């Protein structure tokens, strides 16, 4: 047992740069595969609703705006989202309609402003063998 065993370590750091990141003023870079905020690329979405079904937080909501036009509305409730990226995994299209970016500073004073909304026309599923069969019937519709 030594008296003051920690002393050299402490003194060594006295004149070193602090290890703290001065966060809001300086920011660290996130790794390239960081799971940030999910978003939709509406031109690719075939409205199979796989993401809505698998989302553990019920943060994705797809409703039909107009049946005739095949127009749909998708809301991502970022106030509920748990950033697990399961929606990206579940998305059956290639390239994936659901994607995730590296934004992490989402805080807001109003939960309504956290909800992201897209209104779009369903994309036509290209007859590609690689894409697994989605849940919704992929009936081809004329693109607007």
């Amino acid at each position, binding site marked *: 047992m030594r008296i*003051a065993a920690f*002393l050299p370590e*402490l003194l060594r*750091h*006295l004149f070193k740069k*602090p*290890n703290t990141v*001065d966060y809001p003023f300086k920011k660290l870079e996130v790794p390239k595969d960081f799971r940030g905020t999910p978003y939709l690329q509406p031109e690719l979405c075939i409205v199979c609703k796989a993401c809505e079904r698998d989302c553990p937080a019920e943060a994705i909501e797809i409703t039909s705006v107009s049946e005739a036009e095949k127009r749909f509305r998708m809301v991502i409730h970022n106030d509920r989202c748990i950033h697990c990226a399961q929606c990206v995994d579940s998305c059956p299209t290639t390239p994936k309609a659901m994607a995730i970016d590296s934004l992490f500073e989402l805080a807001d004073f109003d939960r309504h402003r956290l909800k992201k909304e897209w209104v779009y026309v369903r994309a036509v599923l290209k007859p590609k063998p690689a894409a697994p069969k989605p849940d919704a019937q992929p009936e081809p519709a004329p693109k607007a």
Partner: protein
Amino acid sequence: MAALRTLLYILVYPGILFLFLYSTFCEWFDRKAYARLQNRMGPTHTGRFGLLQPIADFVKLMSKEDVVPNAADRGMFNVLPLVGLAVVSTAALLLPIWNFDLAAPSVTSFSGDIIVLLYLLSLPTLVMFLAAWSSTNLFSTVGGTRVLTMLFGYEVPLFLSVLSPAILANSWRLAEIAAFYQKKPLLILPNLIGFGVAVIAVQAKLERTPFDIPHAETEIVGGTLTEYSGKKLALFRLMLDIEVVVSSALLATVFLAGFPGGGLLGFVQLVLKTLFVIFLLSLIRALTSRIRIDQVVSFAWKVLAPLAVLQLLIVILLKGFLK
């Protein structure tokens, strides 16, 4: 003229105003040093280098809601922060910083002022205990009993070790003790054991790690000050800050030859020497973990007290030898 000078002395330097500013600066220094020792930043963004952070904390606390528990002894509860602040400010006036005349004793510098100062420094501990007791909170009560238990441990070693240099200097007056060591700087060396003991005892008096037992927040929440909030808490914190300054200035006077050189040079010496002592206190704080109350008392009596007695013995022998 003398009256004006004394008024200036009480109100501005080294009185209330200076004490307030300097104690907040010392708190900043303590926090910054502690943080840097831990590889952290410490206060950074309020004022340059975060210098204004303690003042900002003080102002913020002053503006917070002040809650008095129903079960508390209202009178005691309310008056104690002021008493504590008054006591430590009075103690600060006794420090031989600027307004003293070596030849003639005055109100603030007289033979025996070292004893008065030591007793005035004991009072904040009692104030803390009474504050804890009168707030009747269970955690405060436990904290209060711990305050007193610790007092029995460190008080004797502190007195013994602080009085040793006075014995060597053959004076009970702080200004004369400082002047003695200014003349014979080499005699500071024999007092080093006493200095060590005194630093540790002051650490205990100030209730800082490893002796932060009375307000160990992981055990008994806020301990002594659990029920205090708002202005009263701000005043208590100011009291503790001033106590840090006064204790370190006392150690600097007695062990490090005081602050000679009149107004400006004396001020520089005051800053340097107190900051040195405060740095030592921060270092101890960073270096150790909190110990148990029984360990404090046994450490004080088994290690500190014998060392203090040894110091006394060295001083007495040395005094005989010098004659």
